[in-house]
């Protein structure tokens, strides 16, 4: 037992999880913004905008996250010298956030679009009938109801994002949880299974409240019809 507990003094386990939470926070913010724009494109009355939105979603959603993150580090930074500022580690962190945000934006877009489908067509017609054009109608009438209808799928995307933040390991974010776990396993092969379990349980503890919160929110904020 002391043998196991020693890993917590040798390595900064909570700190590693904290890196994932930070990755998740910034990537979620970026994905929510970009995903909302993409959803607007996909429901826009202009056919070419819809095509742009659909192309992005189909391209990014069907590309493995690992490839997107590696592309950021090896191609954008390594080959093209694309630098998002900060020191060496800071740049990798930001590149990983960018990759996570770009990837999950496609899923956020589809979650919001499923929310839009919960809004009856008559709501959009009524908005148009009082003279609102597309963007004001979307902002005032469609999106507020769509987000409430999309809380659960958005929560699922957030849960996936939390766990996918470990892919930042391939993007040279050496301080995040799965990188830390890999290092620990290399040096403490005697307790491989407890180390695995530690990180598995750690993620479960982070993710469970998200699921509970979104279920509660979706009931509380449901639009009465």
């Amino acid at each position, binding site marked *: 037992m002391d043998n196991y507990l020693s890993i917590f003094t040798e390595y900064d386990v909570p700190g590693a999880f904290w890196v994932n939470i930070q990755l998740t926070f910034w990537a979620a913010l970026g994905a929510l913004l970009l995903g909302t724009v993409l959803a607007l494109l996909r429901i826009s009355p202009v056919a070419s905008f819809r095509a742009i939105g659909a192309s992005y979603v189909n391209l990014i959603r069907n590309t493995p996250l690992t490839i997107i993150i590696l592309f950021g580090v090896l191609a954008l930074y390594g080959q093209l010298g694309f630098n998002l500022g900060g020191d060496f580690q800071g740049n990798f962190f930001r590149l990983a956030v960018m990759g996570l945000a770009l990837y999950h934006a496609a899923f956020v877009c589809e979650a919001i679009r499923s929310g839009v489908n919960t809004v009856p067509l*008559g709501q959009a*017609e*009524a908005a*148009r*009938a*009082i*003279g609102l*054009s597309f963007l004001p109608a979307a902002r005032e009438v469609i999106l507020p109801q769509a987000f409430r209808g999309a809380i659960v799928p958005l929560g699922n995307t957030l849960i996936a994002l939390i766990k996918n933040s470990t892919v930042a390991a391939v993007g040279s974010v050496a301080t995040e949880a799965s990188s830390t776990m890999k290092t620990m396993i290399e040096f403490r092969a005697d307790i491989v299974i407890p180390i695995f379990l530690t990180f598995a349980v750690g993620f479960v503890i982070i993710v469970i409240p998200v699921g509970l919160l979104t279920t509660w929110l979706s009931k509380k904020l449901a*639009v*009465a019809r």
Partner: protein
Amino acid sequence: MKSDQQAQASSDGPIVELTGVNKHYGALHVLNDINLQVTKGEVVVILGPSGSGKSTLCRAINRLETIDDGKISIDGKILPEEGKALATLRADVGMVFQSFNLFAHKSILENVTLGPIKVKGLKKAAADKLAMQLLERVGVANQAGKLPAQLSGGQQQRVAIARALAMRPKVMLFDEPTSALDPEMINEVLDTMVGLAKEGMTMLVVTHEMGFARKAADRVIFMADGQIVEQATPHEFFTNPQSDRAKDFLGKLITNH
């Protein structure tokens, strides 16, 4: 000065004018060469069997339905295809739907003030005042803070009328406004509409309420199979219909009621 004259000229013409309007749903010719003029202050009731195209006609006037060919103009201005110009023109056309379509996440007051604030640029205080006057007039001012789902159907439809009136429309379109209501709520909505008609609002009403047509209409239009079959004053239409389709339609009403 010039713009004054133009405004004068346009308000003398018909408020709504449809010329040679056609629309198909696949093989179904749902609007067949429709020609119709509604003058200022006129109340036109459109009657006809289900599927005759009367709702489509009503919805085409503010382009909730597109048309294949023909011309629709509101107060002298041809209905644009999309964009800001269309939104501006729609603001002048009030629409009341069969299913009310109140904004489900907004309070009754916000439902009425949204258009004046976002489309007409009214300050919130002024919009609130206007909205409360209109809610008072349709008799639901005491519900202003509630959400639509907390109101009865009749109350919701009266709020929808107030929401349309808040835009100071040149014409009001009613697309079967009482068809989704329980029988005891139909009259409260019809009374509101009769009140509007008496105040001189230009109205185009698709309905199955013959009583309303008799009481408030200046002209009855009878549609069947996408065509305007007959138009007459309510008295003429109900007492002496000319076409076989209209006689058949009215005959069925009498035997059923």
